[in-house]
């Protein structure tokens, strides 16, 4: 029995577009023009190959709420039940295929996404107001997940090496669990649903995808690509809709794995609901739940502020602060605080707030009205040190990116996830005090440290509980295979997406021990 091969063998990240070149930018604008001519897209409920109606749920452009991007079906409880039933059938076929064959299908889907990457990036610009560099990055990440898990699943299929003694053969292999329910967010509208679905499928499970109600269009494109590449219709269903379909999936006793990424409230509710194990349910559900964060960046007195300012600004305000990894707080050494605040304030004032389709835009609108109201509610709790000075566009869910500082310790702005363009700076005596502050937070997703002292970097890395710590760089933009991503503490349970342990959550280990002695004769 060989040991598991390196999952990253042969894997390389899909290169993002070189947007500093004018032709690359022009190609995206052309794709957007073509997409606009086709809107609204039609995204039906897809259960085991049956196309339901594509009505009941519209996704709209956050920058122009009157524009419908996708007309989608609205899956209800009965659709969820039908999808799980189809998935049980689909599982028999799909799981019986060799891992290598499944991997080829997933890589075929990656090829389809690659072929359509410009159009898919344009779709995110419209459906989620994701600016071009981030939209393009999201499509690349989706491709990466397919390529990475496809390779990893083949490696995992080899099983693990065990101790062997004469007369006995021990093997450890991994088997798919069954039906996976994938409940995905809108902020990485292609990459995150793709990652969770691809992992489930690569490991041999059937999947039912319930995308966020804000982004059914991207999810539809994903499911189309997987089906076109050869995933059996019954092994992958799509349930666009609101919470009811997701809740029904979570409760369904025939579901084995639930992969969720989203808010803490929903994540914890899923954990509670999935823990119900009625007599008739022949297994205990496995839940992978990636939830919120309150991500902090520590700035030491010897940090290079020329680097800190642009990196922190991009981490906090890129995509309007709507990445799970986004910077929400800066904890700065008091010796560097005044200078940093002055420079950060100046950088925030010149932030470009605008529609996602403009290449100049740094801060697009937030996803929906409720998000805009939430961000404004938090912003009202603290006096702004600086805000962007450009007038906000009249249409769209815009929030002015804002910097606040020196808030009282009990301010909700310092502890609650806001998920918007609001950054709070706090002065600390030293790096150790900053670590204490972070240690006291319930979340532990990403973190950052700017320091030019090797011993400090080592000490902070050992001490911080965060899932992903970034040193002397921005704290967003995790790459598959390079920065396996996921949080600890109340930020999540489950092992890191895009990393070597992720697939283990979608399989169950089986150990076989065979007595190879036959009447005193060892049979090898």
């Amino acid at each position, binding site marked *: 029995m060989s040991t598991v091969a390196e999952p990253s063998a042969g894997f*390389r*990240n*899909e*290169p*993002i577009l*070189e*947007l*500093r070149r*004018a032709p690359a*930018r022009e190609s995206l604008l052309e794709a957007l023009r073509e997409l606009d001519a086709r809107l609204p897209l039609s995204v039906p409920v897809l259960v085991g190959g049956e196309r339901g109606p594509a009505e009941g749920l519209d996704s709209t452009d956050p920058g122009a709420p009157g524009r419908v991007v996708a007309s989608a079906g609205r899956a209800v409880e009965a659709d969820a039940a039908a999808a799980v039933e189809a998935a049980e059938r689909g599982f028999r076929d799909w799981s019986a295929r060799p891992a290598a064959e499944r991997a080829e299908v997933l890589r075929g889907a990656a090829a389809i996404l690659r072929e359509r990457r410009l159009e898919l990036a344009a779709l995110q610009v419209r459906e989620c107001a994701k600016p*071009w*560099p981030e939209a393009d990055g999201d499509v690349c990440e989706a491709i990466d997940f397919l390529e990475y898990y496809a390779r990893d699943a083949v490696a995992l299929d080899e099983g693990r090496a065990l101790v062997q003694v004469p007369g006995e053969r021990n093997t450890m292999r991994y088997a798919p669990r069954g039906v996976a329910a994938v409940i995905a967010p809108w902020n990485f509208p292609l990459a995150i649903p793709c990652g969770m679905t691809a992992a489930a499928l690569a490991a041999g499970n059937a999947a039912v995808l319930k995308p966020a109600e804000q982004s059914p269009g991207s999810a539809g494109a994903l499911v189309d690509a997987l089906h076109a590449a050869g995933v059996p219709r019954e092994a992958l269903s799509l349930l666009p809709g609101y919470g009811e379909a997701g809740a029904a999936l979570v409760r369904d006793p025939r579901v084995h794995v639930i992969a969720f990424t989203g808010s803490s409230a929903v994540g914890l509710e899923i954990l509670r609901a999935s823990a119900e194990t009625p007599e008739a349910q022949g297994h205990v559900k496995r839940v992978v739940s990636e939830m919120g964060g309150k991500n902090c960046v520590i700035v030491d*007195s*010897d*940090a*290079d*502020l*020329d680097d800190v*300012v*642009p990196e922190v*600004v991009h981490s906090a305000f890129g995509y309007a602060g709507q990445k799970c990894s986004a910077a929400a707080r800066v904890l700065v050494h008091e*010796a560097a605080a005044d200078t940093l605040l*002055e*420079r950060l*304030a*100046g*950088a925030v*004032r*010149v932030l*470009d707030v605008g529609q996602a389709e*403009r*290449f*100049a835009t*740094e801060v697009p609108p937030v996803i929906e009205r409720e998000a805009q109201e939430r961000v404004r509610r938090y912003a009202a709790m603290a006096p702004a040190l600086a805000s962007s000075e450009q007038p906000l566009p009249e249409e769209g869910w815009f929030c002015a990116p804002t910097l606040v500082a020196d808030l009282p310790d009990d301010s909700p702005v310092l502890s609650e996830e806001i998920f918007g363009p609001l950054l709070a700076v706090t002065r600390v005596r030293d790096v150790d005090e900053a670590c204490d502050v972070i240690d006291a937070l319930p979340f532990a997703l990403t973190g950052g440290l700017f320091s*030019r*002292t*090797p*011993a400090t970097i080592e000490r902070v890395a050992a001490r911080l509980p965060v899932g992903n710590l970034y040193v002397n760089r921005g704290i967003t933009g995790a790459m598959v295979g390079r920065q396996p991503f996921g949080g600890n503490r109340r930020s999540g349970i489950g092992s890191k997406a895009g990393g070597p342990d992720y697939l283990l959550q979608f399989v169950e280990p089986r150990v076989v021990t065979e007595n190879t002695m036959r009447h005193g004769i060892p049979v090898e």
Partner: protein
Amino acid sequence: MELASQDAELRAALFRFVDVTPACRSLDDLARHLTGYLEEVDDRPPPIQAAMRMSGTKPGRAALGAAAAAGVRHMAHRFIVGESPKAALKAIRHLWDNGAAVSLDLLGEATVTEPEADRYAARCLDALETLAGAAPSWPERPVLEADSLGPLPRVNLSVKVSALTPLLRPEAPEVGREDATRRMRPLLVRAKELGAHLHIDMESVDTAEATLGLVFELLDEPELRTGLSAGVVIQAYLRESPQQLEQVLDWAAGTEREQPLVVRLVKGAYWDHEVVDARQHGWTPPVFEAKRDSDRNFEALTGRLIEGWPHVRPAIASHNLRSVAHAVAAARELGREDRDVEFQVLRGLGDDLAAALADLGHRVRIYCPVGDLVAGMAYLVRRLLENTANESFLGEQQRGTPIEELLAAP
């Protein structure tokens, strides 16, 4: 320096130290950083071991910190001509007396805010005024003051587009370009009034499109077509540099400029950045990866640039003896007078070459950074990187590589 050139790890440690010096708050802090970096070096020569031993006590650290700070300052003075344009006047005059012209370069922090961009623009204006106030008292140096096309300004300032705006972003070059244009225009207007030359430097590929676009647009404005002397840079390490040069030559041939555009040909100083940035993104690096290829391209572009005279004034900026000799020969072969090709070197690195070229009657201009130590550090480290890079001409020369090998055709 030689010690550092020998050992990559040690070199990295010392660069990191030079880099952090401005952010250190005390001698103790300096010493802690120095020893922190040295601890990561596996093979420590005896003088370094002695330094590490000193760091065990507070007085030891104070002494070590003071020595290290003095060392960095000493090194910085080799490259930085003065803390301000006014403070640099004496050194500039000295160079002029000895037959070399200068181009001043104002060092500073990265520009991330509007006030920082405004401050840089104000410093540029101050530099122009200060130099223009002093230059009339300099003695006549015919070689430095005219070529066969006419008189050349005594005052010469190099400016960076990235310092004139906080808005330069690679995916939206027009935004930064517009913002920089609005600060660059008054500088060009003032340079014209003062009879000074303004040279727009080239930086990383991320800003190349904005920079060239800005130059073409501004220098085509009617007011700036007459009287003003200005220049751009072509970086020969860029794979696309032949096309860039053709673009510049076409523009120069098609525009009605009274003073021909000066085109400075350099190898390029952002090689590591460009290669790492491209590798991390999965792109083909925009630069030649073998030094030989850059050298060969430099020679090809030299020929093309000299052919472009009199629409452009060629300036060859290299410390590579072969590149320089090739330019002299190429100019003569094309029938140009020696004074129609300028040579440029960096302060602190090309001083000997500058003296030799001046002795031979060539026009030499020394690129002189100005600024305080804090501001100068990033610049300094970049220069050091180039100087001690394994393949650099000066590094090889220092190590005693035979001259025949150094001068071989690339």
